[in-house]
């Protein structure tokens, strides 16, 4: 396979030399990212001794385009993987390379590709470097716009797992129809798009005791109906029985359904969503666990917070084995010059979300059929997993000063969300103030004050941040996170870090030093635990 790529790349390169007269030019661009950290042991915060002292991750991406061809390679190096990145990444190589031909109607890819069917509930392959996540498929993909309004795609391959490929084969196909674009003569109000997809995996059964299905299929259907101020999106997915390590080798089917209705007017937006997930953990290896070899993507219906105390202490992580969730989000901009809006206007964002378990009626069949339970489609269980009620108000106070305040009320079941036992639940209130002061054209100061109030788990936190920026070229910040409410006296620690960075258009260099609190970084549906550390961190990103 790799030979093929090299040859193709060589071919592309030689094409360039001979093909200039056609008016096409070869263009090469890319990006790099380098992260390194120097670790010091710090027993107080539980930062372990790192024998290598310095660990680093590096990624380099190169893409060449020539006419209808695009080819790319990515080099990755984990020497060794930073703490919190899966240690199985240790090593270096080219885990990603592809060649694509596209003439607008027809797209053909060989090598690695990222793909998504619908919203991803039966298949999504993607990359997130900050999480150390990449489940690209290595294989062949064909996409085609068959007639106006109809697009189909199909693919086959194996998924990436660290520097290797999945034991299971993955095959998939999808069709999407924009009903209004068809020459059908049918007139429907609004714009309607419907789609259907199917994915199947094949993995040999080598289990000595259980008869496992070697082919496991999943199908999904979706629609998106849009009117000028109304948008309705719905999707349903079904997965055949798929006994795996994560579902305790149960033979029940999987199911997920999702509906969102949003309504918009000038300066007003509202979206209401509901979702059911039942036994939808779907992987290219029935023995895989953690953030490895996921075929599908189940996004959480909760708000993704960015402020430190709101985003990294108690973030929700989707429960693929079963959950019922709902979310309401409202955005409103009070107009400039109105009584409440003030001279510059005021922006309000309200978000309410909740997650419970699904109702399960146990079948007690573990030694016979191993289905496990029955669950009615609309059956909401009694166990609360998560609640998040939050409001954010932001307002420009003058030409120089902007402020926003945020309040959250959280409920978080530690055992369920982190997969632990007897850690209990947490109820917390969080308040955040964020003020930006443009001292002059080039000098900008920003302040953040945050507090998390709770009597459970680690107790209450306070956080302060002062940041200075010189234009967009340079910044420096000091952050202190103080666990003052910890019931263990010597754990009432100040986590103080110094941070600075330089931005040169497309090159960023960032450096931080000090004590980093253990936390959970979540992007989309995937979360990663970042252990506590003490040391110096440097990160360089650049694109060209």
């Amino acid at each position, binding site marked *: 396979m*790799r030979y093929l*790529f090299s040859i193709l*790349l*060589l071919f592309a*390169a030689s094409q*360039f030399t001979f093909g200039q007269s056609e008016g096409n*030019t070869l*263009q*090469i*661009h890319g*990006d790099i*990212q380098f992260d390194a950290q120097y670790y010091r042991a710090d027993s107080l915060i539980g930062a372990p001794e790192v024998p290598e002292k310095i660990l680093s991750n590096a990624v380099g*991406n*190169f893409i*060449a385009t020539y006419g209808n061809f*695009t080819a790319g390679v990515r080099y990755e190096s984990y020497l060794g993987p930073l703490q919190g990145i899966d240690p199985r990444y240790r090593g270096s*190589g*080219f885990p990603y*390379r592809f060649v694509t031909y*596209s003439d*607008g109607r027809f797209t053909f890819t060989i090598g690695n590709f*990222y793909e*998504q069917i619908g*919203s*991803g509930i039966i298949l*999504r392959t993607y*990359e997130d470097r900050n999480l150390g996540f990449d489940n690209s498929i290595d294989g062949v993909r064909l996409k085609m716009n068959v007639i106006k309004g109809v697009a189909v795609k199909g693919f086959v391959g194996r998924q990436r797992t660290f520097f290797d490929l999945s034991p299971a084969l993955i095959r998939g196909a999808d069709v*999407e129809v*924009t009903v209004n674009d068809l020459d059908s003569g049918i007139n429907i109000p609004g714009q309607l798009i419907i789609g259907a997809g199917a994915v199947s995996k094949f993995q040999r059964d080598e289990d000595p005791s259980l008869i496992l299905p070697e082919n496991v299929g999943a199908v999904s259907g979706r629609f998106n109906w849009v009117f000028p101020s109304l*948008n309705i*999106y719905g999707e349903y997915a079904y997965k055949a029985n798929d006994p795996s390590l994560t579902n305790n080798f149960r033979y029940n089917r999987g199911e997920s359904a999702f509906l969102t209705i*949003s309504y*918009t007017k000038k300066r*007003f937006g*509202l979206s209401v969503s509901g979702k059911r997930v039942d036994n939808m953990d779907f992987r290219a290896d029935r023995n895989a666990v953690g953030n490895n070899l996921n075929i599908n*993507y189940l*996004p959480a219906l909760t708000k*993704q*917070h960015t402020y430190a105390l709101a985003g990294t202490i108690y973030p929700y992580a989707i429960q693929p084995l079963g959950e019922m969730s709902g979310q309401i*989000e*409202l*955005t409103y*901009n009070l107009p400039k010059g109105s009584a409440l809006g003030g001279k510059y206007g005021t*922006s309000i*964002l309200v978000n309410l979300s909740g997650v419970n378990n699904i109702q399960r009626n146990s079948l007690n069949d573990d030694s016979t059929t191993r289905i496990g339970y029955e669950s009615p489609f609309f059956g909401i269980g009694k166990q609360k997993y998560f609640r998040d009620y939050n409001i954010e108000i932001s307002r420009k106070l003058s030409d120089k000063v902007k402020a926003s305040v945020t309040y959250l009320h959280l409920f978080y079941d530690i055992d369920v969300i982190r997969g632990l036992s007897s850690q209990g639940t947490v109820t917390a209130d969080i308040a955040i103030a964020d003020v*930006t002061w*443009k001292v002059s*054209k*080039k000098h*900008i100061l920003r302040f953040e004050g945050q507090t998390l109030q709770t009597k459970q788990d680690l107790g209450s936190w306070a956080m302060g941040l002062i940041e200075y*920026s010189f*234009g*967009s070229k340079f910044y420096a910040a000091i952050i202190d996170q103080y666990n003052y409410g910890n019931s263990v006296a010597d754990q009432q620690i100040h986590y103080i870090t110094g941070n600075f960075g330089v*931005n*040169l*258009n*497309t090159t*960023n260099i960032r450096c931080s030093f000090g004590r980093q609190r253990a936390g959970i970084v979540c992007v989309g549906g995937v979360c990663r635990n970042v252990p506590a550390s003490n040391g110096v961190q440097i990160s360089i990103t*650049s*694109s060209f």
Partner: protein
Amino acid sequence: MKNLLLILALALTFSSVQAQEKAARKLPAAEIKTLDGKVINTSTLNNNGKPVIISFWATWCKPCITELINIADKYEQWQKETGVKLIAISIDDARNSIKVSPFVKGKGWDYDVYLDQNQDLKRAMNVNNVPHVFLLNGNMEIVWQHNSYAEGSEDHLFELVKKVAAGEQISATE
């Protein structure tokens, strides 16, 4: 051996591109979605020969939102003076992409907003982090780009937009 071949191929491609240094970089072709869920190809984007700003952002990215709010205050004037169009590409995935439309309407933004749910365009344009802004000339060629945002740096961007609108050459390091 295999890797060696690969590197050789890359080196070859590189050496051949050296001669082409001055060639303008076109907006790459990728599929993105409108807020109505319709798939379009980026090769169809244009602004009738006027400059274009492409801003990569996400609903969870504070500096991105600050930048788009600050430009929104001046956008009408920017358009009047230069005819510039801002295309905001949301890289929110399925978790948040459904909330982008209400969010944008709630903010009252007049930008052309598209969804890059699985980050195909983001990858094709080698965007590491958001916010990342590209400035394109009337031929949809990338003439300048910048990653990260600080309060007030939209004024610098507008200076460059004016130059591009007037047909002046600008350097990538400006």
